[in-house]
């Protein structure tokens, strides 16, 4: 019984985390057809920025609750800045390249950003753990659970639903979906594709940064955290179908529960539970569970 509760909660918690780190990736791919390997570096930048900002905040002796405001601020400001800088500075000049070449370009960006992170922050670990302990824990049927972790589930749901409403119910969002459907026609119809792309990339980056910021209080922020994340995020979006927000949610749940179940029931399989799910899904549905298939016109 306790084990069941643990699997349910851990799976949910891990899925929420996976969704947070993967949703930006799928958004950017969905609108821009860029599979952004640099996503992992954005996550790392988020985590480091959060640790630095919180360090400064605490050393100023300000009230502890304000830390969450700082985190939110860091996520939005750093995300938008980094996203816009990369989009305006680099990617803008490269649109129209083949999708695979874009993967290599973002891989190059990833390498550059990874080292930039090390040059800025060094190789020693950073901590920002106070917010994680701030809310304490609650007892769920005998299992102590951090309230922070449960809030993370809430954050994932709010961001996911918010993103979905934004894409389907607002003008900008609808325009974005139009761009997905056909870039040339949208441009011909007067949609400002440049604006849509810049917005998408900035929002997608900010989502990766949110992932990093929200995770920073739980971990030691060390070099290499971005590499770990990018592979997990890939697995999630590939399972769900590249470019689909509901797909990312389903993919996160698949991968999250696969991992939680293996941790509790068969820890020896934990290492490749996610890859196994990914390979299985791809073998059955080659383009993921929620994939759009674009037919080719002759």
């Amino acid at each position, binding site marked *: 019984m306790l084990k069941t509760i643990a699997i349910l909660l851990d799976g949910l918690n891990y899925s929420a985390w996976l969704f947070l780190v993967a949703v930006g990736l799928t958004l950017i791919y969905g609108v821009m057809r860029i*599979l952004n390997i640099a996503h992992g570096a954005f996550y790392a930048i988020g985590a480091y920025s959060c640790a630095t900002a919180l360090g400064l905040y605490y050393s100023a002796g300000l009230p502890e609750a304000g830390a969450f405001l700082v985190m939110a601020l860091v996520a939005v400001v750093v995300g938008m800045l980094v996203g816009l800088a990369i989009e305006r500075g*680099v990617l803008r*000049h*490269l649109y129209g390249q*083949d*999708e*695979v*070449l874009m*993967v*290599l*370009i973002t*891989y*190059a*960006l*990833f*390498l*550059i*950003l*990874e*080292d*930039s992170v*090390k*040059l800025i922050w060094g*190789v020693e670990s950073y901590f920002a753990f106070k917010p994680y302990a701030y809310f304490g824990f609650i007892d769920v049927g005998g299992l102590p659970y951090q309230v922070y972790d449960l809030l993370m589930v809430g954050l994932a749901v709010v961001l996911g639903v918010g993103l979905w409403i934004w894409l389907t119910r607002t003008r900008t969002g609808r325009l974005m979906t139009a761009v997905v459907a056909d870039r040339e026609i949208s441009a011909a119809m007067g949609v400002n594709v440049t604006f849509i792309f810049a917005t998408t990339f900035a929002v997608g980056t900010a989502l990766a940064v949110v992932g990093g910021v929200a995770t920073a209080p739980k971990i030691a922020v060390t070099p290499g955290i971005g*590499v770990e994340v990018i*592979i997990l995020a*890939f*697995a999630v979006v*590939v399972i769900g179908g*590249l470019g689909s927000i509901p797909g990312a949610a389903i993919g996160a749940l698949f991968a999250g529960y696969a991992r939680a179940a293996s941790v509790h029931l068969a820890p*020896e399989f934990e*290492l*490749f539970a996610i*890859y*196994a799910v*990914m*390979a299985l899904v*791809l*073998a059955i549905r*080659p*383009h993921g569970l929620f994939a759009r298939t674009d037919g*080719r016109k*002759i």
Partner: protein
Amino acid sequence: MTIDFTKDWRNVALLAVLLAAAFFLPSWLRFLLQTALAGGLVALGVMIQMRAGLVSFGQGLYYCIGGYAVGLLAAKAGVAEATLVIAAAVISSVVIALILGPLLSRYREIFFAMLTLAVSMILYGLLVKAATLGSTDGFNVPPVTFFGFLPAQEARGDWTYVLTALLVVVACFLIARYLASGAGALLEAVAENELRLEYLGSSARQAVYIVYVIAAAVSGLGGALAAIATGHVDPEMANWTTSGGFVFVALLAGRGSAIAPVLGFFLLELVRTYALDIAPNAWQLILGAVMLAVILLLPDGLWSLVRRAPK
């Protein structure tokens, strides 16, 4: 781009001459060259797939299979005969590729990249899990024998270098022949207009299957030679970051000659050994910047400079 590889054997001959002369390099540099040649073969495997427009982010799979085939035979089964272990490495790579090929040849673009990556990561996971094979530490590969003859410790470097150089030249020659063949020409057609190729009566999937298997064979050979050179194998060979390095070299070197990735890998290793001492934490930054510059300024890689010169 061109499909004209009829003269590429001349480049391979040039490579043979260079490698023969390199026998007399200082031993550390020659060793660097030797490991780079082994890695260069994997980059060559990536390169020929790139000719079909396919980027394998999991070529480390075959690098690792080749290395572990040699390692398992030499260290665990007591078979250290060079010809046998290398043959086993190539054959096991080909067999795995023959099995995976029908599935992977259905995929294109990023789905091919992602699926090759996933398969490679599954092997990585399995090896990390395999405590009897040393998990992440891997295990050491004893020196190989040459038709039963085990060279003295001092001479082993010479023997394995000659072996490596010889096999790399042969592999490059065969790949050059393949690229010059009808099947090689079809790769370019797959990359540019697969639909047209189908309407001309040829199977794009078959062309992809063939290149996938050939790439696996040459990568498996690379893994085998790396294991023999360094005397050590570990699961890192199958990690996606290793594969990313091969993609990098293939892209940097270009697709214009069978020898381009091999020379490119050596060039990269040479720069790396010096750059790492100066700026260990800026190395990837340099790599990334070079990669961006090559994509933007020399989309056909450094080899296009060589090609452009005459005319």
